[in-house]
């Protein structure tokens, strides 16, 4: 209908409805329905974000005095103050391995759970359940289970298997465990849906062509899955990077797990330095973007077309 209106020129145009004439100019009036959402986003996200960026250029007098740099004093402080800048590495040291682990462990599990077997639903539910717990509950669970006075240590001590309680929480390991518990279900769900999008007849074809399972995985499934793996990695990385509650609850908040989110929180609540807190928050975004950019750069070399499955 629309194309005929376009091709038959002005005579037909007169009879075309307003909607069609607008559509010809690329105006879709249905998009007007998005207006409330856009206003909402502007008010609740873009405005505070812009305000936050503005704040970073209004450093406290003390910061300016100590680090110099005028308007940019907060940024100078961020890079020069080892106490703050080390946090970048601390955060990355948690988030990168956690994301990598979640992705790598999800692959074989998603593979295994692809076939039908008794109790599959049950197992899937158990794997995905931690999503519903939230980080605080996870942290509390970890403390009760693996803390110095936790069940695990008590059990091991009482049975004489160890003499000293194992230090499983309030350190790097504790935060790592909590990141895995909360990040794994996401990674697993995403990867298994990417996997189900790959047409099983491709593997069958590779089989009849003489490929054993390793060759099938390396040559067919992995290349088709790789873009999905990259996306999953990014999502779990972002989740892990902004870790805050568990870094505080099951971590070592002033040492090994002094992550950026904690530093921003401290600047805000303890030092009442809003501008420094904003600077740290902005820099968190920048670091995340750098990592994401690297992953996308790698992803751009991969095949990303149809995988022929039920999608």
């Amino acid at each position, binding site marked *: 209908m629309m194309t005929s209106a376009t091709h038959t020129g002005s005579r037909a145009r007169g009879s075309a409805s307003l909607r069609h004439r607008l559509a010809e100019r690329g105006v879709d009036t249905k998009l007007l329905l998005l207006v409330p959402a856009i206003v909402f986003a502007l008010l609740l996200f873009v405005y505070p974000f812009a305000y936050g960026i503005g704040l970073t250029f209004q450093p406290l007098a003390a910061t300016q005095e100590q680090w110099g740099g005028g308007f940019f004093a907060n940024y100078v402080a961020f890079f020069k103050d080892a106490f703050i800048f080390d946090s970048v590495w601390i955060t990355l040291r948690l988030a990168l391995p956690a994301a990598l682990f979640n992705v790598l462990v999800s692959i074989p599990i998603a593979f295994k759970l692809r076939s039908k077997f008794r109790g599959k639903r049950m197992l899937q539910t158990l794997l995905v359940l931690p999503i519903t717990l939230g980080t605080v509950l996870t942290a509390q669970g970890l403390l009760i289970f693996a803390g110095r006075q936790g069940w695990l240590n008590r059990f091991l001590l009482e049975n004489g298997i160890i003499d000293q309680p194992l230090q499983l929480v309030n350190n790097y390991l504790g935060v790592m465990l909590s990141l895995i518990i909360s990040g794994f279900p996401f990674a697993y769900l995403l990867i298994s849906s990417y996997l189900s999008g790959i047409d099983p*007849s491709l593997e*069958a074809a*590779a089989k*009849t*062509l003489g490929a054993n399972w390793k*060759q099938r995985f390396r040559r067919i499934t992995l290349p088709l899955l790789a873009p999905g793996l990259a996306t999953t990695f990014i999502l779990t990385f972002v989740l892990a990077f902004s870790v805050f509650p568990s870094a505080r609850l099951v971590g070592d908040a002033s040492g090994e797990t002094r992550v950026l989110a904690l530093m921003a929180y401290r600047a805000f609540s303890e030092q009442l330095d809003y501008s420094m807190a904003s600077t740290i928050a902005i820099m968190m975004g920048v670091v995340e973007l750098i990592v994401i950019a690297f992953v996308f750069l790698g992803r751009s070399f991969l*095949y990303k*077309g149809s995988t022929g499955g039920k999608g």
Partner: protein
Amino acid sequence: MTRSTNTFDTLELKNVGRSFGGQNALVDLNLRVRAGEFIALLGPSGCGKSTALNCLAGLLPLTHGEILIDGKRIDVLPSEKRDFGMVFQNYALFPHLSVEKNIAFGLQMRNLPKAEVTRRVADGLALVKLQDQAKKRPGQLSGGQQQRVAIARAVVLEPRLVLMDEPLSNLDAKLRLEMRTEIRRLHQSLGLTTIYVTHDQEEALSLADRLVVLREGRVQQIGTPEQLHNNPTNWHVADFMGYRNIVDLEVESVVGDLARVTGRGISIMATLAQTAAVGDTVRLAIRPSDLVVTGPDTPSGRDAIQATVNVVEYQGREFAVEVTTTEGQNLYVHAYTALLPGSTVRLAVDPSRALVYRSSLDGVAAPRELSAVR
């Protein structure tokens, strides 16, 4: 390319069966395939054709029976060790690999030297005339081109058996005819042994040396195209072989292997393809082309069927006509002159071209033909 080197003498399927959770998809398939044969598996949707093929390819484990090559069991081998080529119904080309890499895949899995892989891929591309498309991805090809890639990918390995699952079902009529010829040509020039699945009787008749007709997982008849075309063993096979008029009638009298069958405004002499007694309800099968229009003026013999013309379709050389008998039975007829809808016609049929079958299909699975191939 020359004749496959790793060929065999006979492939034997013994009582091969497969069921899905108690539901039989394939029952007691017995078949002996000689090297170089072209076998077509024919049957309606859901009759177990793909199941049979997947069982052969090793993609589905058997629940009954065994598959032997020259007396050695191969149904215990995993798919990748069977050395069969398979062309999938949906082609199953690797979307991330170029055409030449798709074709090279199987050769690389066999760890052949690079030079040989290159040479055989070039041969394969030439075979299906796709040299110009070598660097493209499957997604950038037309349906017919994809299909040829799928065939090339399967045959460059010179497999001892090629399995094809309705490879032409997604193509348009013209391309289908072209590819049909192409497949037969490849089969002959490469000396392949082929098992071909289709639900199109014309395709099966024109391609195959022997046909296997399946229904609900059971073999109905095995034989050459001529045997099936002229002597279907039951009405189901007849139906598949173009006997479009299938009418339930009653036997009035029997003389030798001829019988008079009556009912639905029809009373004619017909050949007993299966035994029947007077009073039995039977199925009469007649091809549209065997029903001759004699016109309303010819004196009405006892064997003429009187009918009214319903629909006339022009089909080039002839007209396909639907008529209704005086008792409301629809029949399909071919005529060489345009008949007027609404006019009355008389139809006649040579008794040797009208076949009488029992109505039930149970226990009539052609034991004679089966023992002949065993």
